[in-house]
């Protein structure tokens, strides 16, 4: 099953490689991994999307907690949460495609960030499946380039991941 795990860790050099190294050394899957400093510059927040049986996910959270640089771990999939991913897509936009592309972007609430005679660069945020749907809706061959950030997640309501 797919799980989205959030963690707070010391913003130290090498902390990211400890997490990445743990996943590869123990054979856990990583679907995506995002990381950036938080409002407290001494801490980084990481979101890892992974998959595995309940036993594997339990081990993943335990092993993450065991890393000295990791301050807190939460499996967001345990409760209500929001997740978003950002994608930039460069698409062919010339001739009759140009109008169609603009409409598709609007339908998916995308924003066109860059325009040339032949191409648009569209920004899209949403869940991973929404981004997949957008790419699926485009005609084959119009996509010139894509880049995705991987999911970031946060708990709904009062569910807060913070160092007490």
């Amino acid at each position, binding site marked *: 099953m797919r799980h989205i795990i959030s963690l707070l*860790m010391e913003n130290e*050099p*090498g902390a990211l490689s400890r997490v990445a190294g743990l996943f590869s*050394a123990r054979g856990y899957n990583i679907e995506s991994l995002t990381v950036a400093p938080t409002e407290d510059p001494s801490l980084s927040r990481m979101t890892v999307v992974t998959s595995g049986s309940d036993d594997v996910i339990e081990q993943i959270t*335990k092993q993450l*907690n*065991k890393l*000295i*640089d990791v301050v807190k771990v939460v499996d967001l999939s345990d409760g209500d949460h929001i997740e978003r991913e950002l994608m930039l897509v460069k698409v062919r936009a010339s001739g009759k495609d140009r109008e169609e592309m603009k409409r598709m972007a609007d339908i998916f609430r995308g924003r066109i960030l860059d325009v040339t005679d032949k191409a648009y660069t569209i920004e899209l945020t949403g869940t991973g499946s929404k981004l997949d749907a957008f790419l699926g809706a485009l005609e084959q061959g119009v996509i010139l380039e894509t880049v995705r950030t991987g999911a970031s997640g946060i708990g709904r309501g009062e569910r807060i991941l913070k160092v007490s």
Partner: protein
Amino acid sequence: MELTAGVTTELSGAEITMRCLQEEGVEFMFGYPGGAVLPLYDEIFKQEKVKHILVRHEQAAVHAADAYARSTEKVGVVLVTSGPGVTNAVTGIATAYMDSIPVVIISGQVPTHAIGQDAFQEVDAIGVTRPCVKHNFLVKDVKDLAVTMKKAFYLAGSGRPGPVLVDIPKDVQTAKTNFFYPQSVSLRSYNPVVKGHTGQIRKALNLLLEAKRPMIYTGGGVVLGNASAELIQLVRALGFPCTNTLMGLGGYPATDPQFVGMLGMHGTYEANMAMQTCDVLLAIGARFDDRVIGNPKHFFQEQRKIIHVDIDPSSISKRVRVDVPIVGDVREVLQEMNRQLVAGKERPDSVAIKAWWKQIDEWRGRDCLKYDRASKIIKPQAVVAALYELTKDMDMYVTSDVGQHQMWAAQFYKFNKPRRWINSGGLGTMGVGLPYALGVQLAHPEATVACVTGEASIQMCIQELSTAKQYRLPVKIVNLNNRYMGMVRQWQEFFHGNRYAESYMDALPDFVKLTESYGHVGMRIDKPEDVEPALKEAFSRKNDLVFMDFITDQTENVFPMVPGGKGLSEMILV
């Protein structure tokens, strides 16, 4: 992080490192010099509090420090240079990591401005050691050095212990700053649980009291957690059978009637059968590894309730699902368990326990460790048995290498106290035996130290005979020489159709002459009747290192054996 009282003076990084070691009360450091640690060696030269032991290979430095830690309750300390110094140390570090041994490794690094430039003797020490340390640090600023050293010692020795590496670039060793050594540190990201949950302990105790076929299985955690006395109290109060893992030997006295021997791949018939068929299992400071329970699927063909006590939450429910997990320091948990047992009125079901012991005694009657005592060729088991008889009343430590001799030592030497049996359980590192013996002998100069080894393992760190000479360490080497990598040969015999690929050690040295060339005493023993007199003579030479080369039966195998992937009750018996 909190800082408390300390002293202030301006010192170089190298001086600071030495001051930190002195503040930590470090007695010995094991190391080997090189370019990137010369400022540190200069400071070693100028002081006398910390004694440096010069090994002949960095791997042995870590092994010796590891054994020093295993046989005391202290943190072992190592100093190596950059590049090959670090990579040579990796085997030792991984060995300590797998067995959760507290060691602080200080490594030199090329100057900060040269890092990443492929400088001479540069290696990414942090990257290379990351998978086999509890934590590691690269100190880029001399101002962080003292606090980092404090953190390193704290992390190595607390919680589930383990090796911690501190990588110090050469320019950080020469840079100066005010010295301030904190008395303590606390890390917001690291708070090992010490006290076990009393409700869980109650639940565990209730399960144990209702058990009809209970079993207590303990590992290295009881030894490292200094919980032997508490374990003995609990086992005796309950009247249950107790088994130890290879790492846990000595945690419960081996000569006690409630001890059913070691369990696992080469465990006793009675221990493995009891483990397989028990209805309530109390696991303490052990991790259900593949050499202990064999195939987990087979293990779960029988229904049983499992209670698991461990300081590391990630050890619980890793290979087997547990019914009652208790995270905490094993000693604290056992104290609470004993307290609750004494305070409560309930006692175990004596009728069921009596019937259970009857079954266990039947299994014991199988005499699974028997061997040909009338053999005309020296049987390796007979050597260990004779060693035990001769030395059992001495202040004795036994180290071993890895292979058949290790298993025979574990089976036939009866350890009644913890921290007396020093071997590489998790990583299974050939070559540890001699450096382990040296580390133990330094820690316990008055004690007797024997290294039970084989002719293949001993050659992996044989150069340490030179270290033994330099520091006059009179360890006794019991070499069970069967001219084979015995355990490899045994597997080839059982599972690879007797095709002994590369397991015959051709061109063995004359160990007597080799030992003598290092200035020690060598003996060669090839008749069964000479075993005892030879051991007696060797152990009477209090001040000499004696290398006893026992020429043993080439075809002897270790029994019982649970083949890889098989279940605990599927043993091959003699």
